């Protein structure tokens, strides 16, 4: 979802999500996940609606959203590629994998290519530590990355 929705629409869709989930115990994280699933990010315009709906201050909601790495302030690219940079993957050359992917895509971590095709992110462990180095492309896991697999990934995100 790369199109940014208008603020009134964001407010009404956010309100619907809150209505559905506010009966949960500790509903804020599930609500934020649903909002990100809906819009592809957590729009600024959603925050006051959440604050109202859950009887929190805007500062509290902002504090929670900004604490967690997962919640985006703006839409990601059409694909999201996460490269594991934790120790087990380091031991199998994840540094070199990251350098190669960055060079092929022409972007650094936390950046999106200019054509909006892919966002590149580091991740600290996918639990694939006996299949290192590993990555996740749009939620699908990939292990034992080598030049061939890197080539396939880059071709896929560019197509």
């Amino acid at each position, binding site marked *: 979802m790369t199109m940014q929705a208008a603020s009134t629409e964001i407010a009404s869709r956010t309100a619907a999500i809150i209505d559905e989930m506010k009966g*949960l*115990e*500790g*509903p*804020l*994280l*599930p609500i*934020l*996940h649903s909002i990100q699933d809906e819009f592809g990010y957590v729009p600024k315009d959603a925050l006051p609606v959440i604050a109202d709906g*859950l009887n929190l201050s805007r500062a509290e909601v902002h*504090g*929670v959203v900004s*604490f*967690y*790495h*997962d*919640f985006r302030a703006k839409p990601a690219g059409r694909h999201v590629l996460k490269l594991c940079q*934790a*120790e*087990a*993957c*380091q*031991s*199998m050359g994840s540094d070199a994998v990251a350098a190669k992917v960055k060079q092929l895509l022409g972007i650094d971590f936390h950046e999106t290519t200019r054509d909006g095709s892919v966002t590149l992110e580091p*991740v*600290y*462990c*996918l*639990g*694939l*530590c*006996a*299949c*290192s180095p*590993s990555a*996740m492309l749009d*939620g*699908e*896991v*990939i*292990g*034992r990355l080598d030049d061939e697999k890197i080539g396939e990934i880059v071709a896929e995100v560019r197509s």
Partner: protein
Amino acid sequence: MIPRIYIPADSGALALGGEKVARAIEKELKERGVEAKIVRNGSRGAYFLEPMVEVATDKGRVAYGPVKPSDVKSLFDSGFLTGGHHKRWLGAPDKIPFFAKQTRLTFARCGINDPLSLDAYKSLGGLSGLQNAVAMAPADVVSQVTESGLRGRGGAGFPTGIKWKTVLDTAGDQKYIVCNADEGDSATFADRMIMEGDPFVLIEGMAIAGIATGATKGFVYIRSEYPHAVATMNKAVAIARKAGVLGLNVLGSPNAFDMEIRVGAGAYVCGEETSLLNSLEGKRGVVRAKPPLPAIQGLFGKPTVINNVISLASVPVIMDKGAAYYKDFGMGRSRGTIPIQIAGNVKHGGLFETAFGLTLGEIVDEIGGGTASGRPVKAVQVGGPLGAYFPRALFDTPFDYEEFAKRDGLIGHAGITVFDDTADMLKQARFAMEFCAIESCGKCTPCRIGSTRGVEVLDKVAAGIEAEKNLALVTDLCNTMKFGSLCALGGFTPYPVMSSITHFPEDFKPAPARVAAE
């Protein structure tokens, strides 16, 4: 009998091409007009053999692996549906040395059947622990767990039974069971494997915990990096609810227990129990000061058992076979079995469940088979990003909570990352500080500021700027972090840093010498 083919759908197997293999097998069956049932099981945990495909024959299961899509045609040609020989033939799975040497209690069922088949779960002894528990007084269930000697498998090693007793003895209109499935430590994947490969054992363990302590509601907090585990657990909970394993009358007893799956949001620190509770409540995942203990004032201020996945998943076997049976395995004060996860640059990576007491050398060299690169092992990090780096000189250390502590290390969640001789320990020490800076919750100063200063000072060492003076500064800083931090993130980051400096001093020599050596 229609042949049954088992193709793992565990994330690790999928990451190695499991889905492509499954599609190739389906296609081949269709083209040949052969009828067979495909079962998507979990993984048994030998990732060097994944995707490991198994076939049920008259003489039992026969395994093949690692199977590539290009192997599928020849597998059919070799008659693999009846166990025929092929270059990927491994024979009976439990005779494969990696599995034959294990003692599987917690992982007894993991990866054998369809993880979402409750009938398959029951056929292999599932639910008998819960059946026993519902017929017992809560205090007796707690004392069984205490007597078994089970200690928290998340890393802290606190006796599980004592935690439960505190919750049982604390009055509360509502109590909770919280399962910590925020398995963020690199080299660990045991929680993921259980959730994807045998989810009902975790549900059963949580239900027993609920009955033992008077808690009626459970939460599993799973990290968002595990989408497959989240999906499997959600389905398993729905199945368990429908079958009456969860609900107002657990297995027809007067005990009520139900649970929900919650997803984290990418914060490593939420693996710390109090920040996990804050996160579940919908707050910033900031660490809480203790006391009060979560057992007394936990989730929403109510008495709460918070245990790791493996601790809870080990309870059913204890309640089924008895405390004495479980306690009989292990050494010293480390009782029972531990699922060791062998990872990183290693030939035979995977999950190896065994009684406590194997030496680090046996695990890395004999079971792990040395490095994947074929180069000499330089260091192994035990216990994730907060664990110490051990050199070969300490490979005689037995796998035991106290023995590792004696050597300034920890076993943590029992993950082991192997590094070959190309590893630069200064770089690893710097990463430990950098990771702490990225993931610090920011509540306490030693962790929040100390980690950033640690990166800067180690950069100076790497640049050869007053190396000796700066190393003394890092040592002092580590001391402050170790004793001044509120939780294990800041408090244990010194382990990888100091162990690197202590055991691999040559990697911290001033830059000119390092450059000259390269």
